[in-house]
C-alpha cells in the first residue's frame, strides 16, 4: 500500500452549484417546454410585428368575422372590424414591458427591505415587517386600481403600481433567507475581516440567497403579467398601447358572438404566464433537487 496520505484529495466531485442547477433544469422536460413557450412568445412579440406588418388599430373589414372566412386574417376581426392577429402580435410588447419593469421594481423594493430587515433584525426588522404587512393586507388589484386612476395612465405608471403591489412577498422571502444565512460562520468570518454591512448584505448574503429569489422573481413575472392584463382589461392602461388584456377588455361584449376576439389574446396571456410558471417550478426543482416530487 503506497501513499497512505495524498495531497490531491478528491472532494465529492460535484459541479459548482449554479452549473449543476442548470444541468438539472435542462433535464426537466416541463421546464424546457416552458422555456420554449417563452422564447416563442418573445420572438412573436419582437419579430412578429415586422413579419406581419399590420396596424392593429385600423379597421380592415366588417366586425366579428370569424377565422377561416375568406379574405379575413387568420384570427378573424373584432367588434370594430380590426385584425385580431395584428392585435395579438402587437399586444405582447406592452404586456411584457410593463411586467418586466414591474418585476424589477418588485425586486428592488422587496430585496432591499427584506435584506435590511433580515440582516439587522430587532427593532428595524419589526418596523419594516409592519410596513410590509400594511402593503400585504391591502387588496392588490384595488390598490393598483387606485394608483392608476389617480394619475394619467402611462405604461410606466402601471408598472410602478404593479411592482408596489407585488413586493411584500419577495421582501418576506428575502428576510427569511437572510435570517437563515446571517448566523452561518462565513458571515461571521466576513465580519471578522472587517467587511462593511452593505457588502455583507449584497456581496456575501445575497448571492447565497439567490436560488429561492430567482424562483420567486420568475413566478412574480407571471403574476405581473396577470395584473397588467387585469388592469388593461378594466381599461386602465394607456389607451394608445395595444395589450392583450386591453384586447379582451375591448371585446368583452362580443364573447358570445365572436369567441375568437377574446380567445386568442387570452391564449397569449395564458401561454406566457404558463411559461413563467413552468420555468419557475423547474428552477425550484433544479436548485433543490431533494424537494422534488413533494
Amino acid at each position, binding site marked *: *500500500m*503506497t*501513499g*497512505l*496520505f*495524498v*495531497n490531491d*484529495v*478528491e*472532494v*465529492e*466531485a460535484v459541479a459548482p452549484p449554479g452549473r449543476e442547477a442548470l444541468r438539472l433544469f435542462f433535464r426537466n422536460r416541463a421546464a424546457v417546454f416552458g422555456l420554449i413557450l417563452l422564447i416563442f412568445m418573445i420572438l412573436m412579440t419582437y419579430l412578429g410585428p415586422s413579419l406581419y406588418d399590420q396596424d392593429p388599430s385600423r379597421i380592415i373589414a366588417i366586425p366579428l368575422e370569424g377565422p377561416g372566412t375568406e379574405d379575413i386574417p387568420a384570427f378573424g376581426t373584432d367588434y370594430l372590424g380590426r385584425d385580431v392577429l395584428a392585435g395579438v402580435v402587437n399586444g405582447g410588447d406592452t404586456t411584457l414591458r410593463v411586467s418586466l419593469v414591474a418585476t424589477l421594481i418588485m425586486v428592488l423594493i422587496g430585496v432591499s427591505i427584506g435584506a435590511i430587515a433580515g440582516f439587522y433584525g430587532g427593532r428595524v426588522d419589526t418596523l419594516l415587517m409592519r410596513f410590509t404587512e400594511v402593503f400585504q393586507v391591502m387588496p392588490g388589484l384595488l390598490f393598483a386600481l387606485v394608483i392608476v386612476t389617480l394619475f394619467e395612465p402611462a405604461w410606466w405608471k402601471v408598472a410602478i403600481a404593479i411592482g408596489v403591489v407585488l413586493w411584500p412577498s419577495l421582501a418576506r422571502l428575502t428576510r427569511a433567507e437572510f435570517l437563515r444565512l446571517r448566523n452561518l460562520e462565513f458571515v461571521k468570518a466576513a465580519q471578522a475581516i472587517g467587511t462593511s454591512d452593505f457588502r455583507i448584505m449584497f456581496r456575501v448574503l445575497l448571492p447565497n440567497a439567490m436560488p429561492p429569489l430567482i424562483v420567486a422573481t420568475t413566478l412574480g413575472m407571471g403574476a405581473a403579467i396577470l395584473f397588467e392584463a387585469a388592469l388593461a382589461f378594466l381599461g386602465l392602461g394607456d389607451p394608445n398601447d395595444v395589450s392583450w388584456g386591453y384586447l379582451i377588455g375591448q371585446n368583452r361584449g362580443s364573447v358570445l358572438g365572436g369567441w375568437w376576439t377574446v380567445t386568442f389574446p387570452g391564449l397569449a396571456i395564458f401561454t406566457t404566464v404558463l411559461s413563467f410558471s413552468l420555468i419557475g417550478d423547474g428552477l425550484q426543482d433544479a436548485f433543490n433537487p431533494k424537494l422534488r416530487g413533494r
Partner: protein
Amino acid sequence: MSAPLVEVRDLCKVFPVGGGSNVHAVEHVDFSLDAGETLAVVGESGCGKSTLAHLVIRLLEPTSGSVHLDGVDITSLGNRAMREHRQKLQIIFQDPFASLDPRRSVGKAVAEPLTIHGKGTASEIDDRVAQLFERVGLTADMMRQFPHQFSGGQRQRICIARALALEPQLVIADEAVSALDVSIQAQVVNLMMELQAEMGLSYLFISHDLAVVERVSHRVAVMYLGQIVEIGPRSAIFENPQHSYTKRLLDAVPIADPRARRDRPLITGEIPSPVWEPGTAPTRVELVEIAPGHLAARED
C-alpha cells in the same frame, strides 16, 4: 474457549454514487468479538467505521459477507426472526439530542423497547424503567420529564438506559461519547465500563478518539479506506503499532502533558477519497499475524 459472540466474515458494503463510481465504505472486514469484551474500531472520517456499525446491527444491508451473532447469521434472517434477534443488539448514537423524541417523556422513551417486545405488564415495565434510571445514575422521578430538561450527558445516560432495557448482549457505541464535554465523557465511559462488568456486555466501540479508546478497549481495530489495516490487543496496538497508518494516527494524538510536546513535521496530506471510478476497486490488504491475535496489513 467458547465460540465468539459476534463473528464478522468478509463484510463488504459498496454504495453507488452515480456515474458508475462507487464508494467502497467497508471492504472485506473480518473480526470476532467475545462476550464481555470491548472491541474498538478507530479511524478517521470516511474510513467506514460508522458504516460497519450500521452493518453489524443491520440498519444497512451488506453488499456481501456475513455477521454471525451467537452462531446465527443475522444477515440472512427474515423480518420476524430478525426482530427477535434485534433484542440482543443495541446501538447508542453520537447525538443524544437527536436520538430522543422531544415530545415524549424520557420514561416512555426507555419503556418503548419493552412495550414493543411485550415484556410484562404496564406496572412491571414501569418498575423496570425506574430500575434502569437508577442504574445509569439518574433518579426514578426524572421519568416523567422531557428530553429538553436534560443536559447532554444525562440524555446519553437515558439513551444507555433505553439500550439496556432488553438486556442485550452486544451494545454498539457509535461515537457515543464524542459530543460530550470531557468531564461528562469520563463519567459516561466509567458508567459503560461498570455496566459491562456487571452485565457481561460486549461493546463494539466506534470512535475517532484514540485516548478514550485506550481507556475502554480490550482489542482495537484500525480502519483505513474501508479496510482493517491492523487489529490486535489494545496494548499491542498502542505500544507496538506495526502499520504505518496506525503509527501516524497515534503520533497525531495531542497528549495532555506539555512536557510530552513533540515537534510536528510541517507536512500536508490527507486520506484519499473512498470513491472509486467505474471499473476500479481497492486492492485487498493482506493481514499478517505478528503476534498471537495481533494482525497488521503487509506494506510494500
